[in-house]
């Protein structure tokens, strides 16, 4: 084997090692299992990938979020809470990690792509971790710990608005300081041409998740222990109504204004479908970067593809229908929009660095350096990958409706176009939440009952 071939094989090896895969096979198998309604198989994959097998401790954040959600759906609530608790520990590590300590992976990600770095939790991820834990505890009638998790949800939401105002300002100055103005606007134009309209990704005011806000309000309305709790309920319901203009939330606010005692009745909350997910969109860079001797130059960006509902709505006892009050897609899109500028800046900077290195090697008088230049071009092509990681088991939207306590203590829920589900309500009439989760039309909807503290 001559030296050239050896060098070629060696360099190719490096290239493929560097090409951290943005959509690994485990993720593809996971998504396929979900789409087929095989929740136990999906749970097994998520646990294997992100949770230590013997003690249920999260080891890889994104997978542990998927595992915690599926354990919840499969009614393994203690395990779900434990996995989410340890996911929160990983989130905390991410939040407090020393920037200097992560310098190496930052630098490496500039050479390769963001997939070689650990998953950075989004703000909505953090809010939903605490929301799911609060719902787990509520379902177990552990009102003490549910209260703590709802308080955490509240604090996470407060921190969200703060975080984004800081982030947006930082990105504006980054475009200026990197002299990327022209390249940036050029790239945005290209994106527009390829059908990606960043402008339409608009957040809810203050980057609030109205679903978590409403459920927080509903919890303290139904389970209030004092006038202070009722004030919490009113505040959250008022804010949730301002964001969503939902008729049901308005009715609940009226109920909260009526006093602490809430008459027996059933709220049907429907967590519907699967959330928006990211896909990779590759675009050519504006021409000024391209030289005749460059093999490849381009960028790969994550863009959002809309999620989908499992059913249009649920009808209850042949009458009331659930109506959408919060759209997870809108929450994710709004947050992604603020990050998108940062992602684009980083990707442009990375492309400039890689292309400049490639061009200078290709222009060399030395044959070997020129060969390396060509290989660098291939490496650039292979390593240009968008970070499309996101929490796939989040819902597309949240719906709600309310019915008075049925005399026979029975509830029949009909997913539009699906099989009817019979729900036995508790023997003691009380305000309860029937919480329905359907990932898609292939999964049997999970139905859980959240009782009232005041009825026990």
């Amino acid at each position: 084997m001559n030296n050239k071939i050896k060098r070629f094989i060696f360099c190719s090896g490096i290239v493929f090692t560097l090409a951290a895969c943005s959509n690994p096979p485990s993720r593809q198998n996971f998504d396929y299992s979900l789409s087929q309604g095989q929740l136990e198989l999906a749970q097994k994959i998520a646990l294997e990938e992100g949770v230590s097998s013997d003690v249920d401790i999260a080891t890889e954040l994104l997978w542990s979020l998927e595992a915690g959600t599926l354990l919840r759906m499969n009614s393994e609530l203690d395990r779900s809470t434990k996995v989410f608790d340890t996911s929160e520990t990983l989130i905390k590590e991410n939040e407090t990690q020393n920037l200097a300590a992560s310098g190496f992976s930052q630098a490496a990600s500039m050479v390769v792509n963001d997939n070689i770095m650990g998953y950075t939790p989004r703000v909505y991820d953090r809010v939903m971790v605490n929301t799911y834990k609060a719902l787990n505890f509520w379902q177990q009638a552990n009102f003490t710990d549910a209260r703590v998790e709802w308080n955490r949800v509240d604090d996470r939401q407060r921190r969200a608005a703060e975080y984004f105002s800081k982030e947006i300002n930082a990105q504006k100055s980054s475009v200026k300081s990197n002299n990327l103005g022209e390249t940036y606007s050029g790239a945005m134009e290209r994106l527009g041409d390829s059908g990606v309209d960043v402008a339409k990704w608009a957040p809810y005011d203050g980057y609030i998740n109205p679903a978590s806000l409403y459920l927080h309000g509903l919890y303290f309305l139904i389970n209030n222990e004092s006038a202070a709790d009722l004030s919490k309920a009113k505040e959250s319901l008022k804010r949730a109504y301002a964001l969503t203009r939902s008729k049901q939330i308005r009715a609940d606010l009226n109920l909260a204004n009526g006093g602490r005692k809430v008459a027996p009745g059933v709220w049907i909350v429907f967590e519907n479908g699967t959330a928006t997910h990211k896909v990779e969109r590759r675009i050519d860079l504006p021409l000024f970067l391209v030289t005749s001797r460059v093999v490849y130059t381009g960028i790969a960006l994550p863009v959002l593809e809309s999620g989908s509902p499992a059913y249009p709505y649920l009808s209850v006892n042949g009458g009331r229908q659930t109506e959408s009050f919060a759209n997870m897609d809108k929450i994710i899109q709004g947050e992604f929009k603020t990050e998108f500028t940062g992602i684009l800046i980083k990707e442009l900077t990375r492309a400039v660095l890689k292309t400049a290195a490639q061009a200078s090697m290709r222009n060399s008088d030395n044959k070997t350096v020129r060969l390396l230049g060509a290989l660098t071009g291939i490496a650039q092509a292979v390593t240009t990958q968008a970070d499309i990681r996101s929490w796939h088991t989040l819902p597309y939207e949240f719906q709600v409706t309310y019915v008075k306590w049925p005399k026979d203590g029975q509830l029949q829920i009909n997913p539009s176009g699906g099989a009817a589900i019979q729900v036995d309500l508790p023997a003691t009439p009380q305000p309860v939440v029937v919480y329905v989760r359907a990932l898609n039309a292939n999964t049997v909807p999970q139905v859980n009952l959240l009782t009232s503290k005041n009825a026990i």
Partner: protein
Amino acid sequence: MMKILNKKTLLAAAVAFSLVGCAEQGAYYVDSKNDSVAVMGLDYKDFEMAATNMVDDMLSSDLLVHPQGGRYVLTVTGIVNDTNQRIDTDQLTKKIRTSLLNSGRFVVTTAINANGPEDEMTRKVRELRKSKMVNQKTVKKDGRVIAPDFSLTGKIIQQNQRVNSSTQQVEYYFQLTLTNLDDGLAYWEKEYPIIKRGDNRTASW
């Protein structure tokens, strides 16, 4: 001397010492009286401080001195944990109960409580009345259990504030109320705040 302490030896020694510095220290006892390490959440020092302060204040109240020099009977209804920490509020009430018992002015009933008795046995031992196995003379009689004079309730509240981009302030308020069950009046109330400031990068729990 210089031969022994050549550059390489010095370098090796420096590396060795820096590695020793990195070694994990095993478990060690904390001197609770001189422990100045603070965490953003609630820890044992906070409970100790809150309980001591509350009890001192309660015992300084003239309203809580039994007129015949006897002891008041206290029931602990419960303390609501309205913080972001999953703490056991019994940690606080136990300290308070212990100090009040030691003061000689209160006894605590475990038989009567708003959420059911803390200790079911007071009721259960009376069910032994029909047991052939138990010496009936030793079975506790009805009409012996003492009703409480006072009820202790409370709440621990947490509020998080942002001081600046790098600092957050976490405020904890320990609130306790002692209600005279005879007339329903609050004979003693106290709020004890604990304020902490620290890193704003992460949540306080």
